[in-house]
């Protein structure tokens, strides 16, 4: 990897710089590849690799502390909401990477979350003594393996074909859970026993906050720790060589190939990383909701994730966090408006998807470029035009 950095770093470096400038994504585009290129770089830039990591780590630590403070002070049902936000964040961030940074659309991330959730449920059902960190890691790995298979197929598809194939995955995969009654619990799904806090964690929390640690809070802590960790990894990945490669592939295939990038490999890698994030998200969903059932992972979940990245602004992790917050806090808000308007509970539960559907349409019609060049799919259009010109 390091040996090839010198030659490839220069051509690809131009692309992210341009892109970031036009889209206003934070960061200067400098970072990795510095070692092989001493000339023409300021001392500050030469120092950035280390400080990028540190800066991100510090930011994430602050975010985690903020989440802890919120969880402790708000309490009640807000803890559950913050827990839900914790499992949406990795999923939306992963989809941001895939769609916003790498230009591949996926409607299958709900299904990938299901893989992570069911992995978690199956492991915890058989042994409650496994440390949850290990379970989380396993969920990420299993989902990543599924991601390799899906990504390999996806890397050859574009636009509507990719959307259709991943749609089929989202509609079809829950069927596997229904089919497997003994192992995956069929229609009813599996109950999940959330991990219990070790005594020292309970003591530490009590020492710091003066509050007792409930299971709900502990799960929310785990969720936020994992979510923040995922964000840290992704934010560094996006600033690294890989981030530049993914952007280059998105923006101009030919230029990327000229720069020595293997398009297929870059796409599959983006899909796998994104799938791992979805796996973590699913695993967190399992312990927060304490249930994995086929109905939790319908196509609506995948479309919700799409709404989050479109609204939050594609290609920015901050946007992903905002999108996740929107999913968690807008849904009850809209549902309450529905109840106020005299709808029954079952009807009001559908006001949120109705609003999200309208939001998707309106954003695409009113501000297709406005919300962060909405979907960075100009490149895909160009690709399609080129393809049809060739045809």
């Amino acid at each position: 990897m390091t040996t090839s950095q010198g030659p490839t770093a220069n051509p690809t470096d131009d692309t992210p710089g341009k892109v970031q400038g036009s889209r206003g994504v934070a960061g200067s585009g400098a970072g990795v590849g510095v070692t092989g290129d001493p000339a023409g770089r300021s001392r500050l830039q030469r120092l950035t690799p280390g400080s990028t990591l540190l800066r991100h780590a510090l930011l994430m630590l602050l975010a985690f502390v903020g989440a802890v403070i919120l969880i402790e002070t708000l309490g009640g049902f807000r803890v559950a909401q913050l827990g839900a936000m914790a499992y949406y964040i990795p999923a939306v961030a992963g989809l941001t990477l895939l769609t916003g940074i790498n230009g591949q659309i996926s409607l299958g991330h709900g299904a990938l979350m299901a893989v992570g959730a069911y992995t978690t449920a199956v492991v915890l059902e058989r042994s409650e003594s496994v440390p949850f960190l290990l379970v989380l890691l396993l969920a990420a790995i299993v989902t990543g393996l599924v991601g390799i298979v899906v990504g390999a197929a996806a890397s050859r598809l574009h636009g509507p074909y990719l959307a259709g194939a991943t749609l089929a995955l989202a509609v079809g995969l829950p069927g596997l859970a229904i089919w497997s009654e003994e192992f995956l619990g069929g229609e009813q799904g599996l109950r999940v026993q959330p991990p219990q806090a070790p005594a020292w964690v309970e003591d530490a929390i009590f020492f710091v906050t003066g509050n007792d640690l409930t299971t709900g809070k502990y799960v929310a802590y785990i969720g936020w720790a994992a979510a923040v960790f995922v964000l840290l990894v992704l934010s560094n990945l996006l600033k690294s060589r890989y981030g530049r490669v993914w952007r280059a592939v998105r923006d101009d295939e030919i230029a990327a190939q000229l720069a020595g990038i293997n398009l297929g490999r870059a796409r599959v890698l983006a899909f796998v990383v994104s799938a791992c994030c979805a796996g973590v998200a699913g695993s967190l969903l399992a312990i927060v909701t304490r249930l994995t059932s086929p109905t939790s992972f319908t196509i609506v979940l995948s479309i919700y994730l799409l709404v989050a990245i479109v609204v939050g602004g594609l290609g920015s992790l901050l946007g992903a966090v905002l999108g996740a917050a929107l999913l968690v806090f807008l849904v009850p808000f809209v549902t309450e408006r529905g109840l106020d308007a005299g709808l029954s509970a079952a009807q009001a539960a559908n006001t949120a998807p109705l609003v999200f559907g309208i939001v998707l349409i309106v954003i695409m019609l009113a501000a297709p470029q406005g919300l962060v060049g909405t979907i960075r799919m100009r490149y895909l259009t160009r690709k399609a035009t080129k393809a049809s010109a060739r045809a």
Partner: protein
Amino acid sequence: MQQFVTLTVNGIILGSVFAAFALTLVLIYRATRIINFGQGAMAMFSAYLALETIKRTDSYWLGFVVALVSGFIIGGVVERVIVRRVETGPELNAVIVTLGVFVGFVALASILFGNTIEGFPAPFSVRGFEAVAITPTDIFKLIAVLIAMGLLLVLFQFTSLGLQMRAAAFGQEVARLLGVRVGQMLTLGWALAGMFGALAGVLIASGAPVSPTYMDAVVVFGFVAAVLGGLDSFVGAVVGGLVLGLTNTYVAGYVERGSALVTLAALAILITVLLLRPSGLFSSSVARKV
């Protein structure tokens, strides 16, 4: 053997309805180069309008007509009001808009008609004849699809309107130069697709339980069938629909609890086709990026 015959017959009938639905996707794709993922939800909405009509008037046929008319209107309005603005933009904007139509209609139907499972009446008996496991309703479905396909064929091959629609789909600029009102033709194409989709929606619903999500899987089957045929071939879509219908009944019939796996089977077919023969089995274009 008996089971094989039954499954095959049922598969062909199911497949003919899938074919009708796949045709709507092809119709829209040829006209506007968009895959309408909202097609199933629109058809479902028409079917629910039909169900409400049937409940109020006790007449299946009035409901049938309501479904077709509402499908025509919904299709045209969606194109004119929503899709028209993304037809020329990046193709994924169009994909996302149709997904918005998808969730929007499913949610709207859940609010208006409730999201419980209801029975949809059948026009004829749903009890099989003695020798063959085929019901009068099945025969009606098959005939309805064949008539609709025949009408579509006549429209496109033998009328001036059909020629104009084909011209508008084939080359917008040239068609416009020759005096074809391209915009109207595109709207008409979507409206026809909406009507055809509503027909498929009602036929699938007839004599079966429906809920606002009952067309979700059908969208996948229709998409796979259309891609199997190359996405712009009417014949291909029909063949693809039959393949999907047979796969459906075979998987559901021969695999234990297989009905849960039919969508995954469709996905497997889709991936296989896209990787081995990306242009589909009946595509008219020489090469296309999938």
